[in-house]
């Protein structure tokens, strides 16, 4: 909507209200993050006490050092990161293969199978997750990382859809020329389509990695405490050897937990937001 014909005053007023709402929203969205950050610099005796003090008296930089020396954070983060990267790579390969096939091949059964992909977009994930757990439990694959790896090899309907939409726009001449030159289908996919799909690959990888890094439910139901991932580890405070909660040190760990995601998001935000629009997937 534009305000051109509304007269100068109401235009100014509309602008003013607009900016006020935007800035107020920004502040409200930032508040929880701000409080987390502030809490991570407090001493335990300052955290959640009365009377409430917002800032730490003396910023405890040692909290951040303690995350690395006193808690198993690094060990769990490494484990989660490695699993996240494996899942991201595998799911990108399998989803792009299927996305490429759905975009470029019209053969018997292909459109029917694609409608299954679309239907899976709206089937509640949880409805499949729990029967899957029962299945993996019967296969004695609980407390292993196989459920993640197998799930990644399968690909994901959202990513398949995303790749397909992207590949649909590629000019037909491109692959026809390659076919004339004797390129097989796999080489066309790998040497022509994939190198030109870098923004989509980056977006899918970030989504997939984030999916492992941020996930709470899967590590909770599949893994025991000594194998668990960050999502579960961060839900409860780390403890010192005497069994007392290290509250603000855990807050510092939370900050470190979130930080890489924010950094990656700022670098790739253009592609990520485009991905959100294309797939309707939100984070």
């Amino acid at each position, binding site marked *: 909507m534009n305000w051109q014909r509304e007269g100068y005053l109401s235009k100014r007023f509309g602008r003013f209200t607009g900016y006020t709402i935007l800035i107020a929203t920004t502040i409200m*969205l930032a508040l929880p993050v701000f*409080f987390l950050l502030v809490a991570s610099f407090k001493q335990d005796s300052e955290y959640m006490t009365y009377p409430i003090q917002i800032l730490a008296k003396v910023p405890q930089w040692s909290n951040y050092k303690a995350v690395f020396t006193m808690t198993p954070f690094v060990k769990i983060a490494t484990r989660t990161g490695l699993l996240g990267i494996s899942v991201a790579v595998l799911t990108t390969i399998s989803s792009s293969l299927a996305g490429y096939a759905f975009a470029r091949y019209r*053969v018997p059964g292909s459109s029917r199978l694609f409608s299954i992909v679309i239907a899976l977009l709206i089937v509640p994930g949880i409805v499949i997750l729990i029967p899957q757990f029962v299945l993996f439990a019967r296969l004695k694959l609980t407390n292993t990382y196989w459920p993640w790896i*197998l799930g990644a090899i*399968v*690909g994901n309907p959202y990513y398949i859809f995303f790749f397909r939409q992207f590949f649909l726009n590629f000019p037909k001449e491109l692959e026809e020329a390659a076919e004339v030159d004797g390129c097989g289908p796999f080489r066309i996919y790998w040497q022509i389509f994939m190198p030109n799909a870098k923004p989509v690959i980056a977006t899918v990888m970030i989504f997939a990695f984030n999916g492992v890094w941020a996930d709470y439910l899967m590590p909770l139901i599949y893994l025991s405490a000594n194998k668990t991932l960050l999502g579960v580890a961060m839900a409860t405070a780390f403890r010192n050897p005497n069994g007392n909660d290290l509250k603000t040190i855990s807050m510092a760990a939370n900050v470190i937990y979130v930080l890489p995601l924010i950094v990656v*998001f700022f670098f790739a935000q253009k592609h990520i937001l485009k991905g959100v629009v294309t797939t309707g997937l939100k984070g």
Partner: protein
Amino acid sequence: MAEITFVKKGVTGGTEQRQKSSLTRSQRRTLTFYAFITPWLLGFIFLGLFPLIVGFLTSLTNYDGLNLATVKFIGLDNYTRAFEDPDVGFSLVRTLLWGLLNLPCWLVISFTLAMILNQEVKGRGFFRVIFYLPSIIPLVAAINAWRIILEKNYGMLNYLISFWRPNTAIGWMSDYALPGMTLIAVWGGLGGGMIIFLAGLQNIPDELVEAAKIDGANGIQVFRHITLPLMTPVIFFQLVLGLIGAFQQLNLPLILSTVGLSTGVPPRPIYLYMIHTYRQIFTHGRYGYGTALLWMLFVGTIALTAIVFWSQKFWVYSSEATTEGGRS
């Protein structure tokens, strides 16, 4: 190289080379297509369809995770049991309340933000990124942060309210967990909603708005008669996904009760349907009953989605309805 191995898959016997040349182009393309989608197709069958069917069969038994030797079919007992379980009705009501509170808040706020950002504002890109930022913060960290605000005795929110009403101690994570949880959900979700609404708004042709203005429509009339009708397909899409999401909400109350209260059992106001189901399976080992509840949710979700789809014709604008609509 790769091409030959793909062709091999579809052909029986060992004389691939000769058989390959005897295949027509379209047959070869069919085989290639299926080779490409094999990982997904196998996964769909073994990790999707198969568990679903096994899950359904489980729901007809008294399986509790341990009694495989003596497990027996008990027909629809698990389903009739759900109707006698008072917690099912209770959790269903809480889930409905959750949807009724969360969905409109989320839709209205993200739509309003998108409307504002669709005007010529400075820093649109900046606000888009900032508003989306909460979506990428893991829920566990988000709730750790929100706890500092929502905590009953030491939280910032009650502290703020205490300026007007001294000694406020509202349990935003216990007795009033529903509004508390809505706050967290809207905080985390409005960026994603806003991005999608904004994309929809940018598809509305400028000529339509200009024409209406020339005809003397004011801002509110333009919104009421052009923007809103043209946005109904996007609102519809968001509503369907939001409804499905509201009914399968499990993570938020689960993490809220782990982080905030350390009990692992959500307080009654946010004892949602999926929490009840989750507890049947993972706390009590009632696999049969739990999967029955899951299937009822599945069927219920489909029914609800169907109703929303049916309601489409009363409020969702489609380009076929008016021949000179601007949507392409």
